């Protein structure tokens, strides 16, 4: 569900804010956080992004590995350069591409910590809605619309997948 939340949020931002993803088009980027057992695959294509689970031996253009603190900081809009300088991020591939993805993630301002604290399996819609906090920059005006979009789309959370294993038993 975290992947779906992130995917929908990123696509909503791309669509409604005319964010140029040309530089990311046809790029496949892996992002992993060992402490959460989280392996995400971002595939940019046709002006949208798919967020899927990354498997070993998957062909990727850029591989980003980061620790828990850096991952959470990324969603709070921390400086990507500073995270690199502090050796909290390990990048294999184009740093520019990684930076573009990081910029996009920072725009979402998803409160990952809150998501982490609630994720022990299926969650209900209002919890997801609360977890989306768009408080920054040009995304600010979208706060209401994106929450509504997500709530409208994700009406199925009571029957939703319980595949958030990277959160289960990892954070508390």
């Amino acid at each position, binding site marked *: 569900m975290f992947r779906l939340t992130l995917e929908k949020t990123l696509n909503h931002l791309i669509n409604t804010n005319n964010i140029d993803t040309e530089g990311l088009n*046809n790029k496949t980027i892996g992002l992993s956080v060992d402490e959460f057992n989280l392996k995400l695959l971002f*595939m940019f294509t046709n002006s949208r992004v798919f967020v*899927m689970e990354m498997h070993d031996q998957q062909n990727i253009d850029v591989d980003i590995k980061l620790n828990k603190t850096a991952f959470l900081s990324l969603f709070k809009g921390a400086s990507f350069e500073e995270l690199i300088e502090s050796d909290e991020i390990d990048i294999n591939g184009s740093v520019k591409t990684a930076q573009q993805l990081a910029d996009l993630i920072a725009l979402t301002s998803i409160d990952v910590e809150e998501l982490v604290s609630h994720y022990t399996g299926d969650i209900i819609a209002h919890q997801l809605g609360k977890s989306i906090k768009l408080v920054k920059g040009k995304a600010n005006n979208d706060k209401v619309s994106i929450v509504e979009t997500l709530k409208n789309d994700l*009406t*199925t959370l009571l*029957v939703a*997948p319980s595949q958030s294993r990277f959160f289960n038993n990892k954070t508390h």
Partner: protein
Amino acid sequence: MGKTTHFGYQQVDVEKKQGLVKGVFDSVADNYDLMNDVMSMGTHRLWKNYTIASSNVTEGDKVLDIAGGTGDLAIKYRKKVGPSGQVILSDINSSMLEEGRKNLLDHGVIDVEFVQANAESLPFEDNTFDCVSIAFGLRNVTHKNIALEQMHRVLKKGGCLMVLEFSKVENEMLEKLYDFYSFNLIPKLGGLFADDEQSYQYLAESIRKHPDQETLKTMVLDAGFGLCEYHNLSGGIVAVHKAIKT
């Protein structure tokens, strides 16, 4: 008898399966939506909503809804793609298409195209669609591998395939309850609400004969898709396979 395949728990000639499935859907078409609501207690609508929410379909997209039946997904895809997009509802069964036409008109939706087509030989150019979707249809297809290859062919590069289908229940206790419900109550409900117990017996059987989550994922990847993952819904009663043409 030549080469055989399953039709529910029966083994039938490969050439005959399509006609037998047609018979089932001709019989259930009139009460299809009602029976879906009764059998799933309305949950099929949530499963379908989840599928659409996961599809990443956006304004201007071209969507092919295979085995689209009574059109409940097509209506929602139509809303998502907006006036600049296109939705084609295809089904092999003319009775189901007829129900779809009526249903869409009842919902005031007139800009969906209807095509009677076999999923194993889709009458569309290569690289046409941004999304191909099939909900509760794949298990009725005789040659699923061919159908998946066809779906791959008609998708654009970067396009997304969504397969919503009954699958393998994860929990043993739930599986026992589900088996009891499927084989004892569903056919009875079919008899009661649709006057057709036999077709709903086939439904229960066909679900058990359908490939499980991992097997279907392998089949999707073998059909040429570069990425595929699935999400179990309602404990694996159904699964959504999402695949990308890379």
